[in-house]
Structure formats: C-alpha cells, structure tokens
C-alpha cells in the first residue's frame, strides 16, 4: 500500500497531505477491488456462457429487485463516505488558522511574485518557515493563473478581479516545485517557481537579509542575477535566441523599429521604460504581453539590469 502510494503521489510535505492521500488511497483500493470483480465477471460470463449453438435458449430474467437495490445502495453508501471524507479535507484546506503567516502572491504572465511583510519582493522563489501555517493571498495582474504545489496538495486559481487564498503548513525543510495550472498562453509551462522551506530561525535571518546581499555586488553581476531571479530570462535570451520577447544580446544602443514604425535607440531611458511600462512601445514583430515590473524592481535594481545588458553585446 505504501509503495503504491509513494509511486502514485509526490512526497507528503505539508500537514494536510496525509488526509488527502488517505482518501486517494481509499478510493483507489475500493475502485480496484470493484473493477477486478467486474472484470472477472465479464471474462467469466463471456467464457462460461459462450454461444454453443445457434439454437441456444436463454432464460427470461427481466429484473431482480433485491439485487438491484443492493447494487444501488452499496455504491451510494460508498460515495457518501467519499463525499464526507473529501468535504472534511476540503474544509481544512480552506480554513487557515488565525495566526497564519501571510504572504502576498501576484501572478503575471509568466512569473510569480511574492511580497513579504518587509516589503521585499521575490520572483519565482517562495520562502516560508517550516512548521508554521502560511497563508497566501493571491491575485493576478492579467489572465487567470492557478497556484499549485503538488508536494503540499494545495491549488487555487489566481484571478485578476478578486483575491483568492490558500494555506499550508510545511513539514520538511527543503524545496518543492510550484506550477501554474491554469492555461495562460505561450510560456504557461515555464511559469514555474520554487518553494524554499527554511527552519524558523533561517527564515527570520533570510527575511532580514533578503536583498541586502545584493549591495556588495558590482552592478553588472547583480543585473545578471536579477535577470534570472525576476524570470526575465523566461522570455528574453542572452545569446541571441528568439523567445517570446527580443533577446538582450546586442540590444544596447541598437536602432530598433517599433510596431508603429518609429525608430528608437535602445538607451537607458528606453530600457527603463520597457521594464516599468512594457506596453508603451513594442518592438516590431512581438506581442504586447510583458507584465510591468513597477513596484517589483527598485531604481538601483533597474540600473543593475541596464549595466548587465550593456555587457552582452
């Protein structure tokens, strides 16, 4: 049983995973027993009552009330058990403890932003403490997304016009993958993030020092890191490859043709505008799909990215 469960499901890394898995296993085991019975009956009947001659006479059995009530009531009882069990788990999944640690989540095509109480914003990296309930308050900047951590057995759609939330309590220090599970376009399958679960002390240390390590880096190196951390590289390559957006290679001071025919020089002001108000001017041949990074990147970080772009000619 355990090995079957381990094969079918991701590792249990939240307090609620066990409840969900138990029901998953219950339904599987019951189904397999019933399916085996039905399959054996099909094969046995097909063999035992195979046609022996064209003149075979079959009995007239039109119905059997006792039998029919039995095979209606027993499944009904079984599904009602599953219903109650599932509802019970769902109520736990949707009722966060009052003292849950809150993190704001913003979904954008195609990245996840995590806003912490200190004002620090991380992209595609969720940091949470272990053994402490965490509540995510989520919204989308554009289309529908869905926030899914298989290891925690939690999922919730992220909508543009309202807040949704989910909560979990991680039980193991380590990393878990986060998927977007509501189809959102070209790079939907690249909208991944990682949940980092820290010990309580490590989390506090991380929160206090988050971002400050950047201060000691030279701007171009910091820019290179920021491009990865903020998922710029999901859509913009550094090696000339054409992705969803234009490549960074050779961008600096190049003459660019915009969609409306305007020719611009890719200088500091253009790059800054493209980060904060991406749809103001669109390079010819590309779609206006980039989300704004206003509020996500501060001025110093934007400077660093510009410095980095300067280096990749």
């Amino acid at each position, binding site marked *: 049983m355990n090995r079957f469960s381990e094969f079918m499901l991701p590792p249990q890394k939240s307090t609620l995973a066990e409840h969900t898995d138990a029901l998953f296993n219950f339904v599987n085991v019951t189904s397999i027993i019933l399916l085996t019975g039905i399959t054996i009956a099909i094969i046995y009947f097909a063999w035992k009552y195979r046609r022996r001659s064209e003149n075979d006479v079959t009995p007239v059995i039109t119905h059997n009330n006792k039998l029919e009530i039995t095979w209606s009531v027993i499944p009904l009882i079984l599904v009602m058990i599953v219903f109650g069990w599932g509802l019970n788990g769902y109520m736990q999944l949707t009722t966060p403890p009052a003292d849950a640690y809150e993190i704001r989540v913003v979904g954008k095509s195609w990245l996840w932003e995590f806003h912490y109480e200190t004002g620090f914003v991380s992209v595609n990296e969720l940091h949470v403490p272990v053994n402490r309930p965490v509540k995510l308050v989520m919204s989308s900047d554009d289309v529908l997304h869905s926030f899914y951590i298989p290891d925690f057995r939690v999922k919730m759609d992220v909508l543009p016009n*309202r807040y949704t939330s989910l909560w979990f309590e991680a039980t193991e220090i380590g990393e878990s993958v986060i998927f977007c599970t509501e189809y959102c376009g070209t790079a939907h399958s690249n909208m991944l993030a990682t949940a980092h679960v820290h010990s309580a002390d490590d989390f506090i240390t991380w929160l206090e020092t988050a971002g400050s390590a950047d201060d000691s880096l030279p701007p171009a190196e910091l820019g290179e890191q920021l491009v990865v951390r903020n998922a710029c590289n999901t859509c913009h390559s550094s090696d000339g490859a054409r992705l969803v957006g234009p490549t960074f290679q050779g961008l600096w001071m190049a003459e660019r043709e915009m969609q409306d025919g305007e020719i611009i020089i890719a200088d500091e002001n253009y790059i800054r505008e493209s980060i904060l108000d991406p749809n103001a001017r669109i390079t010819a041949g590309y779609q206006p799909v980039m989300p704004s990074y206003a509020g996500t990147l501060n001025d110093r970080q934007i400077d660093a990215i510009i410095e980095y772009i300067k280096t990749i000619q």
Partner: protein
Amino acid sequence: MATNEATSNVKRIQVRRFKPEEFPEKHYLNEEKGIWAWMTTVDHKKIGLMYLASITFFFFIAGVLAILLRTELLTPARSFMDADVYNQVFTLHGAIMIFFFLIPSVPAVLGNFVLPMQLGAKDVAFPRLNLASFYIYVIGALFTFFAIFTGGVDTGWTFYTPYSATTGGNVMAMTFGVFILGFSSILTGLNFIVTIHKMRSPGITWNRLPLNLWGLYATSIIQILATPVLAITLLLLTMERLLSIGIFDPALGGDPVLYQHFFWFYSHPAVYIMIVPGFGIISEVISTFSRKVIFGYWAIALSSLAIAFIGFLVWGHHMFTAGQSSLANMVFSFLTFLVGIPTGIKIFNWLATMYKGSIDMKAPMLYAMVFLFLFTIGGFTGIMLGALSVDIHLHDTYYVVAHFHYVMMGGMVMAFFAGLHYWWPKMFGKMYSEFWARIACAILFIGFNMTFLPQFVMGAQGMPRRYFNYIDQFQSFHVFSTIGAYVMSVAFLIMAAYLLHSLLKGKRAPSNPWGSRALEWQSSSPPPLHNFHHVPVIINGPYDYHKPMSEFQLGIAASHNGHHHHGEEAVTVDKSEKEQA
C-alpha cells in the same frame, strides 16, 4: 399479444408476416443516383452516412493533431514545434474532437440511421430540417477552418476569459463556428424527440422502446436545453469583444468566473450528450450478442433520464479551485456523486444481461466489453475527482486528462465503434473481416491503456495539463504514453483498411446477421429507401429473445406494398389506440 380487448378503445388490425428480402437489388443506396441526389436527399439514412463521412474526416484530423502533440511531448523541452504552435494544436485537437466528432458522432450518424428504423418509420419527423442540420454543421465547420487559417486559436477548447479576450488569432471566427454548430445539434435533438413521440409504429409503446432510443431521447432533451446556453455564452463573448460591454472581462468590470459557470453549464451536460447515446448502443449490442432479454429495462431507461437530469446540476465540479464559494463546492460535489449511481446501475445491468446468456464474441460485443472495462475506470476516476480535497490536488493535471479520455474515448468512442460494427452490415449491406476487426479491437485496447494509464500516474504526481515543457521526472511516462498513441494509430489504420475493403469487396450481408430481435434488423440489408415495404406491427419487446422470430416480422396486412412479399400467416392483433405510457 395485447389482451385488453374488453376496453372500448381497442381496434383490431389484420397483420401478417413479412420476411425481409435477402440481398435486395434495389435499396436506399442505389435507388437515387448521382451527387446531387445525395446532396439534396432528405433520407435519414443517407444524411447519417454524410455525417459519418464528415466525422470520420474530423476524427482523422484531430487524431493526427493528437499524434503531433504526443510526439512533441517525447522530450521535456522543444522537440519539433514551438510553444505557440503546440498551444494551437492542443486547442484544435480538443475543439475538433468535441464539437465536430464526439457531439455529432452517435446521435447524428448512428442515431440518424437507426432511429426511424427502430420506430418502423419511413424517416424522421422533419426530413428537410434534418438535411438543414447537416448543412448547418458544414457551415460551422467552414467557419472553424476559416479561424484555423486566419491566425489560429490558442485558448484551449474552453475559451476561458480573459485569456480568450486578449490573445491574438481568430477566436471570434472559431466561437462563431461553434455557435452555428450548436443549432445543428439543437435541430437534430428536436427532430428526434418529435419522431420518437409521434412516429412509432403500431405497438411500440414506451415500454417496448429500444433502449437505444431511450438513450437518444435523453440526449435530445439535453441538446435542446443546454446548447442554447452555449450559444448565449458565445454571443456574450462576442458582444464583449466587439462592443466592449463588460461581462466576463475584469478590465471592463466583468467576471471571468461567470464565464466558467456559463461555459460549464453547457459543457458538462455536453459530456452526457456524448456518452448517453453510447449507453443506448451498449444495451442493444449486449442484449443481441448475449441473445437474452435485457436485465432491468426500466432501470436502464430511467437511469439515462436521471443522468440527463442530474447532469444539469453538476457543472460546478469543473470549478472547485476556480474561486466559487465553499458551499457551492459542497453542493456540486454532493450532486456529482449522485450522478455516479445511475451510471453504476447501468454497468451492473449489462453484466446481469450477460449472465446465463448465449454470448457470441463478435467484434461489436468485443467493443462493448472493452467499453465496460474502460468506462468503469473512467467512472471510478470520476469519483476520485468528485471528492473535494483530492480534486484540489488533481484538478488541471494529467489525471483529469486521463480521466476524460477514459470516459470519452474508452467509453464513448468504443461504444461508437461497437455501434458502427453492429450496424455496418445494415448500413452498407456488406460484412467486414471479423478476424481483422478483433485484431484491431485488441490493438486499440492495448494502445489505449498504454497511452492513458501512465497519465493517471503522472497527473497524481503533479504533472499539469496543457504543458509544452515539463520537468524531467515525467519524461518516462510521457514517452510510454506516446508509444501507446502510436500503437493506437496502428489499430486505426487496420480498421480503416478492413472497413474500406468491406465497402469495396466485402461479402454481402444477410438482413439479420446477428439474429437480433430489434426492428431495424427485420428489414433488408441495405434497407429500401423507405425502410420497410409495410407498416411494422410490434407485439413484443425488442429484447424478447424467448419469443419466436416470426412474431418480430409482422406488418399491417393491407399495406400497399405488400405484394412484394409472400405472406405466410395472418394474425389478428389487438391494438389499443391509446398507448399505455
């Protein structure tokens, strides 16, 4: 025989036996000739065949798209197509399979062909409307092709807002195509309901109605009631896009979850439009090839209606993670489990029909048994997905993909193949190779399970659906699944080959190769243009295998066409004018 002669509303009619003519020279396929005769025909059988040609074409297109998808998924990153192309391909695979193949398959093809024959009628109630439905279907299809060639569609077959409102491509043409298609579906449903009510031959009371017709009747009700909601939804979507009226788009003050409610209010019942007529076929096939009275006639008939009714109230189970209230989720989950019960009852009834039967494992029966196995898996995994807490984990993963392929392909498509092989001799007057039909069925069964069983596992492990790239840990499952898809395509090639061979060089089929008691088999193969040369009179149920064949070939003695046949006996039957409902 009816024995209520004491009542006043009984009239006596003279009947005699009409044995179907074997290997007729004139039949519906050759009585009118030429392309124009086909295009303007109001004959339900020919319209059925035209639908068959169309859905075969669409099944082929969407099948090729599926092979492209599976091939792309052999590697975790790009294999041979771009993400945008992939997104268009999976959208078209889903949209074409559902709107152009699954929804019209059983009702429009097999229903059109068989329904009037099972009633002993010359045609459906509104033959011209029936032809109009076909052309509406064709126009809808043209719009879809227009959409594909003018930018394509990459929204997924669900057209969820706000993505569908913001993406490029020609979403409007596609939704308009589906909008038009809906009318085809509505008109077919309407036609069937009227035909079943008004055109039953003498003696076909509601409790002698073949279960296939109960299935089609339930389906038609859903088609008429649910399809307009899809039309309304797509119209609102169009108005929002063209006139900027905020309905679904939050930027205009609309609500995207409202769209999902509208969409699933149609699309969940649409699942039953696809599967319920399949149930009807399975009932016919299992009874015929077990040569035994169907077990629990009323349980099967009423469970179809129950499914049709409860099916209207469970749409919210597609939205457990969408942000609807916990109370709504609870109610939808509860109702979802209720709809599972009548489905389970059917499975047990079919099994009980096989018990002590005389089972002939011909191709249609083999497909029916494959259906029983695969559809049961589809049903159990549906129970899994109906459980709230588990669905939170499984929603929008490959588990769901595997589940609906087990229901739609393992259930509905297998039922369609069972029906196609069952009625093929009646449709074309030709037999197919039984040997190759069984081989193809076996390969299809193996390929199907190879394709979709691994998808349950990777879905439960967390692999989201509609993913172009995926993380490496899922690759072995994807590769296995893709190989399964290739195996399935081999089965389809074999099937195409032996069916084509049957059409061109097949042995001529007798009028009733399976020894069925059903009315459509008491006419020639292929049937005459007007199905019967007489007005059939029914005194037994369609599954009364304990009654002699002579009691199933009765017709009104004074029929004007009666001189074609040699009457062997004359029987007097009491017929009550008011049928007992």
